[in-house]
């Protein structure tokens, strides 16, 4: 049962062939069996999930009309607050904290009857590309337990690939949904900025952060997308417009006559040969499905990484000021006569990990008087140039595509001491965040040289998220008929307990 898609699980629930309690228990059993190897979860809410499942089953038995995903389980990234459930964002500074309120994403999930299994591991405050920056230890890639599952949302992607959950929530500031999806052979979507409310999402970089759906199929991602998206008065940057019709697009998958722009600058040198191979094959499949492949150029994308590593740290240095040891979270150093300032300094020393401190200091520097124009100001200008590149390119095509990442999953520990090498993972995903548009990653096959999943990225103009689902569904269908079975059926069996 756990190997079904979320849409299939929903159909079985509607047909009365299973119950949400059974389905939830099956996933809890799977978590108990394999999560000691994978470490996708930081907290498993067995009682809460089963209670939620029983409530959905009771409503269904009473003949209530339920939402499409009612009764289907989901894994929630630990950056999203859920009332009464330990929420850490992967940081020691929030260890043991139980939020007194629900994020809007959680409220929407609950209103849709989606069962929340627990909280998934992540790089501390979503800063990282490997989940190695979690204060609670790394998550392991189910394709090869010695490798990273991507980051920051490596817990969510690994939970999907290990069949611990059919759906997950991620957040994407520079690629934290798409890169984990790429390296685990799963699907991840970063909606248009403002498409999903940020209320209750622990802020890293407010002008870039965006929550979105993670799943094993394009249709499942679309179903989850529609469940969580929509205007929220509690988030002033939430878009007040109808949610794009992504489920209809995922069911259609019709790309006849669509123009698909291959980004010249996001290919070639620095991209692993198997990544390039699977990317080129995917383009051929899309052409065979009736799309027209064109080349587009985005000359300023090469500056996106540099701009990102100024903008994101600048915003995080401000956002993380709230962790001050006064109102919630960790407090250390409170000896007799200690000042609030010394308690703050000591708490933040102990509570924050290396990467978080590195970025706070970098952001503090980039925003400081005398350096502001040279660093943060220049980065904001690059942001304009990247948006202009997208606008020009979208005059020639309906969507833009690239490999999601330059390489397949690397070994745990391989890049953890080289911040610049680690940052390069996000070279193809960051431009999307800078412009606030939508991006999707879906599996394009395995790289022949290492047998690991390769991600195919689709980028669509703001508020045209349905276009990613059209192209994603078309490619997924074409690849599936080649493979004969979903890519994840080729992943090694987890032994577990």
């Amino acid at each position, binding site marked *: 049962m756990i190997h079904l898609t979320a849409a299939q699980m929903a159909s079985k629930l509607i047909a009365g062939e299973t119950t949400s309690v059974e389905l939830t228990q099956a996933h809890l059993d799977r978590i108990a069996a394999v999560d000691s190897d994978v470490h996708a979860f930081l907290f498993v809410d067995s009682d809460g999930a089963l209670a939620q499942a029983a409530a959905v089953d009771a409503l269904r038995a009473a003949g209530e009309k339920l939402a499409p995903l009612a009764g289907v389980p989901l894994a929630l990234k630990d950056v999203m607050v859920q009332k009464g459930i330990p929420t850490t964002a992967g940081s020691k500074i929030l260890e043991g*904290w*139980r939020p*007194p*309120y629900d994020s809007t994403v959680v409220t929407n999930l609950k209103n849709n009857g989606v069962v929340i299994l627990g909280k998934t591991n992540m790089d501390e405050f979503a800063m990282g590309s490997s989940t190695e920056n979690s204060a609670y230890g790394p998550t392991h890639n189910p394709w090869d337990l010695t490798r990273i599952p991507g980051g920051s949302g490596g817990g969510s992607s690994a939970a999907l690939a290990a069949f611990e959950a059919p759906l997950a929530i991620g957040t994407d500031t520079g690629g934290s949904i798409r890169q984990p999806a790429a390296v685990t052979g799963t699907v991840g979507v970063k909606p248009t*900025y*403002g498409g999903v409310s940020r209320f209750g999402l622990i802020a890293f970089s407010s*002008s870039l952060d965006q929550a979105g759906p993670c799943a094993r199929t394009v249709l499942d991602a679309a179903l989850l997308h529609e469940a969580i998206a929509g205007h929220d*008065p509690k988030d*002033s*940057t939430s*878009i007040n417009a109808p949610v794009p019709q992504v489920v209809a697009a995922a069911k259609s998958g019709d790309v006849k006559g669509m123009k698909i722009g291959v980004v010249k600058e996001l290919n070639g040198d620095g991209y692993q040969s198997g990544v390039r191979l699977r990317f080129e094959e995917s383009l051929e499949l899309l052409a065979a499905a009736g799309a027209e492949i064109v080349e587009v150029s985005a000359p*300023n994308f090469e*500056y996106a*990484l*540099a*701009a990102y*590593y*100024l903008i994101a740290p600048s915003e995080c240095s401000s956002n993380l*000021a709230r962790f*001050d040891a*006064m109102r*919630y*979270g*960790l*407090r250390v150093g*409170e000896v007799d*006569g*200690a*000042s*609030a*300032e*010394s*308690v703050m*300094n*000591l708490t*933040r*020393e102990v509570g*924050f990990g290396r990467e978080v*401190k*590195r970025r*706070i*200091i*970098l952001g503090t*520097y*980039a925003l*400081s008087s005398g350096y502001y124009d040279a*660093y943060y*100001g*220049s*980065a904001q*200008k*690059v942001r*304009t*140039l990247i*948006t202009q590149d997208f606008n020009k390119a979208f005059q020639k095509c309906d969507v833009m595509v690239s490999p999601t990442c330059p390489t397949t999953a690397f070994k745990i520990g391989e890049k953890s001491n080289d*911040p*610049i090498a680690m*940052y390069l993972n996000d070279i193809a995903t960051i431009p999307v965040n800078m412009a*606030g*548009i939508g991006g999707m990653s879906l599996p394009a096959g395995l790289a022949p040289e290492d047998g690991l999943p390769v991600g195919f990225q689709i980028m669509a103009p703001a508020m045209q998220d349905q276009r990613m689902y059209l192209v994603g569904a078309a490619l997924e269908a074409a690849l599936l008929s080649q493979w004969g079975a979903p890519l994840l059926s080729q992943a090694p069996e987890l032994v577990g307990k």
Partner: protein
Amino acid sequence: MSSLSRDDVANLARLARIEMSEEELVNLSNEFTVILDAVARVQEVAGADVEPTSHPLPLRNVFRPDVVVPSLTPEAALSGAPAQEDSRFRVPQILGEEA
């Protein structure tokens, strides 16, 4: 070539309210030489004629109706407090104890 000395990092850490060991200060100072070189590339294309973008959405002054809605109770708001007293957050000494 940009760089930050150990003392520069110490000053930034003080501004950011993070206590740092001597080892951390030195390590960060070394790392920043590399990181600042990488990020300084933004200056190559950031001409005076380019407008900055601070946010992806063209939003200005979003308002909502000013109506009273239920908010957190004092108990809920204090539920995560490291210390509390009389329905308030209890915090360490903020001002110098001269008086």
